[in-house]
């Protein structure tokens, strides 16, 4: 596949294990002209705050940013559905010339009266900073008038990467923390951070912790509620998922309220069990917690193992390519795929750090390609070279996998079923199995020519 060139300036962001000493460049702004799979600051903020279902989410800017983020993530709410509507100031040319502050104030005024939200988040998009709207001042005024928190989110798209958007979201969210009463919070209590309840995953995780005797004060932000966030400083421990999104929040809560945090991942058997055991260990003064946790893990694992083994029979020896947003998820996926007997031949992320990539390269077999901020050409090149049978990615990657005639699993926000938790591991295995063994691939040229594929594609 030498026919596909790799951009000289991109070479430092691609590493092949064993081929050279480990070194990878990352955290860079994407190269102008790359067909990167990444998004912007606003996207990062929107992802983090979106699941708070009783808040108003007003997007200040031209219509696009509101239209493209209207109910596209499956972050489920058990109560209000306000977050699933799309509110925009829909800035027009004259607003760009004369400023959008008046329109923003009027919009907030009308919306807060009509929907009576618990709080409002106001997202700044690209041009808001450029035209000089003082969003913070408008928010302050409206908060005073309406008696609810009105929080500006400084998420102008160009002001960094998606990760900076996480930070902006955490800054806004943090202003709610500490505003509620901590009455009735048990010393055995946690906040679950960085879990967005895609497909109802937060509900599963919450159930495990509650069964362990741990109170879950708030989930940030899956099935989120403003009041829960407001009293979250009463929890004894923060459990942070995901490499980037809510770490900023955990850091701020540690600094201001002295709440320690541990990291967790809920994907795959090992990591899910570890997430429970680590919390149990934190509350080791209560020995029953650890006992209960062992019982839960034993019960859940033995419930899924028979079917996992059966699926493994078909999947053993197959190869997977992973391209996800945060590198932390990739760690879990590599381990989860091992349970299915599958080897990872390509792994990449949009936002991984140097330490993340170092961990990835330790986890992978020799020859595995590691990519930071990849483009579709690079992804397809290595998928073919490494003969992957499965691609795990998000919305933009799915049709690329299918065009090449290989299986696909959405491990991003478009997944419909919970992949977290023990039960989620089984869902994951079933989905991978269904896609990899789909009868459609017998009609795909790549599969038909198995064994001759490389020659075919070299031609």
């Amino acid at each position, binding site marked *: 596949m030498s026919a596909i060139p790799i951009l000289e300036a991109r070479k430092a962001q691609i590493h092949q294990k064993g081929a050279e000493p480990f070194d990878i460049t990352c955290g860079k702004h994407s190269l102008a002209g790359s067909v990167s799979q990444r998004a912007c600051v606003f996207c990062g903020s929107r992802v983090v705050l979106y699941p708070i279902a009783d808040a108003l989410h007003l997007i200040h800017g031209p219509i696009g940013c*509101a239209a493209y983020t209207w109910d596209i993530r499956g972050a489920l709410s058990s109560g209000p559905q306000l977050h699933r509507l799309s*509110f925009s*100031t829909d800035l027009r040319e004259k607003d760009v010339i004369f400023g959008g502050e008046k329109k923003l104030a009027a919009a907030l005024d009308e919306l807060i009266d009509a929907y009576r939200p618990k709080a409002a988040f106001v997202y700044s998009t690209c041009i808001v900073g450029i035209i000089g709207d003082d969003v913070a001042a408008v928010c302050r005024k409206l908060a005073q008038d309406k008696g609810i928190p009105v929080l500006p989110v400084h998420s102008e798209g160009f002001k960094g990467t998606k990760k900076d958007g996480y930070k902006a979201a955490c800054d806004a969210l943090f202003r709610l923390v500490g505003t509620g009463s901590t009455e009735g919070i048990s010393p055995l209590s946690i906040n679950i951070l960085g879990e967005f309840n895609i497909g109802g995953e937060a509900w599963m995780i919450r159930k495990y912790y509650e069964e362990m005797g741990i109170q879950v004060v708030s989930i940030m932000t899956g099935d989120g509620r403003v009041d829960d966030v407001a009293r979250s400083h009463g929890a004894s421990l923060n459990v942070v998922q995901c490499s980037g999104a809510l770490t900023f929040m955990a850091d701020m809560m540690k600094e201001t309220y002295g709440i320690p945090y541990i990291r967790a991942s809920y994907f795959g058997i090992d990591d899910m069990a570890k997430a429970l055991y680590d919390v149990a260990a934190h509350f080791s003064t209560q020995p029953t917690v650890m006992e209960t946790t062992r019982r839960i893990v034993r019960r859940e694992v033995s419930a899924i193992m028979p079917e996992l083994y059966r699926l493994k029979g078909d999947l053993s020896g197959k190869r997977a390519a992973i391209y996800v947003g945060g590198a932390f998820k990739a760690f879990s996926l590599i381990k989860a795929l091992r349970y299915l007997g599958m080897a990872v031949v390509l792994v990449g992320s949009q936002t991984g750090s140097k330490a993340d990539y170092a961990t990835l390269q330790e986890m992978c077999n020799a020859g595995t390609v590691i990519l930071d901020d990849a483009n579709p050409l690079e992804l397809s090149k290595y998928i073919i070279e490494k003969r992957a049978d499965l691609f795990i990615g998000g919305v933009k990657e799915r049709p690329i996998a299918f065009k090449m005639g290989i299986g696909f699993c959405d491990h991003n926000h478009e997944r419909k079923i919970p992949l977290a938790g023990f039960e989620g591991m089984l869902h994951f295995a079933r989905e991978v199995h269904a896609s990899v063994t789909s009868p459609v691939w017998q009609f795909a040229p790549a599969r038909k020519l198995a064994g001759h594929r490389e020659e075919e594609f070299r031609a």
Partner: protein
Amino acid sequence: MLLRHTPTEIKERSALTVNPAKTCQPIGAMYAALGVHGCLPHSHGSQGCYAYHRSALTRHFKEPVVAATSAFTEGASVFGGQANLVQAIDNIFTVYNPEVIAVHTTCLSETIGDDVPQIVAKAKADGKVPEGKYVFHANTPSYVGSHVTGFANMTKAMVEYFAEANGLKSKTINLIPGYVEPADMAEIRRLATVMGITTIMFPDTAKVLNGPLTGKYKMFPEGGVTINELQKCGSSAGTVALGRIASMPAARALDAKCKVPCQILDLPIGLTATDAFVDTLRQTAGVSVPDAINLERGQLVDTISDWHQYLYGKRVAIVGDPDQVLALTRFLVGLDMRPVHIITGSPSGKKYEKSLRDAVARVPDAVNIRVPGDMLLFHQWLKNNPVDLIIGNTYAKYIAKDEDIPLVRYGFPIYDRMGHSYFSTMGYRGALRLMEKILDAILDRKDRDADDITMELVM
């Protein structure tokens, strides 16, 4: 009730859009550019814009969608995006090697005031554009018009940059199909081909966004109008442009630049509009209508007569893009149905609104029309005055579910059903398909609601 937050009482809103029935210009420009062969659309703005556009188009077409970005940083937003765009052009031709790059602007680059032609000229002067390759552009500020405007602007740019009059008029007819599905473009061309007419159609997304599974990932699929064809369209005998909002600017520009006379028609949705299209083709090309087309027409008329008894008097609510909404309204009125709530989200002008009012002049009910309006108002109208059928994009399904009204999915985006990119709704055959969908929806409901006594076998 997902939309439980929709208040029944309608209050005039001064400053905001809730649940938009439109999105911003750049995605339309990107879609149009994908209809040029070997073209890489390029978004001159933040990284998020093109990520959202690509994701939205991917969800709608279930196909890989490529584009590049200038990936604006804070520096670029202060000092202008020249360096980013020049570097992007260089990188794109080096790595992805398209035939042509179609640059569109965004709210950010427009607000900063980047002069794209000047930047492209600099890139050329610096030798960044290889021999035989092209860069063209359209200004698509997100705060003006809508996604349809963006499509119109990019289509017009194809004329402005490439069309040449060589002094000799060919017999070729130019077709400007409008912001329609790949399948519609194919059908529009097929009708002309059956009539023995040689055509140049632009843009043309057939085979680009409904391509086959080949086992290979192709960044630039088959399909799309070639630059050579675009150059030659200035010497065609005439232009037939479909849809005033999406296609008129390009048709007029071609007339002004190369003296190619143009006819601007409704989109060929339904009997009368297709008659007008076929008749215009016949006159412009000086051909006669072959029996094959008369047969298709006769079958449509026959079907309308067969099913009129189930269609007449049915009240319909329509939301969508302006050219589709107008043509569809005329078709439904022609079927003796009653469009009573009509909204397009795109600002389309007073003249457009008048055409819409004229189209429903025969409808005996009170008719609500709003240009531009949003989905919240649409829903409120429906709550106050229910209908028998809703025609709209996927977002209308929430309204349909909450109000328990049958829905025919039509327009952009459709995220939850297949068919739109493969089966046309244009021409006589397309009208049959549209009728099939409408009848299925209405008759399924009739069957569902029938009691044991009135249940009919033969309909």
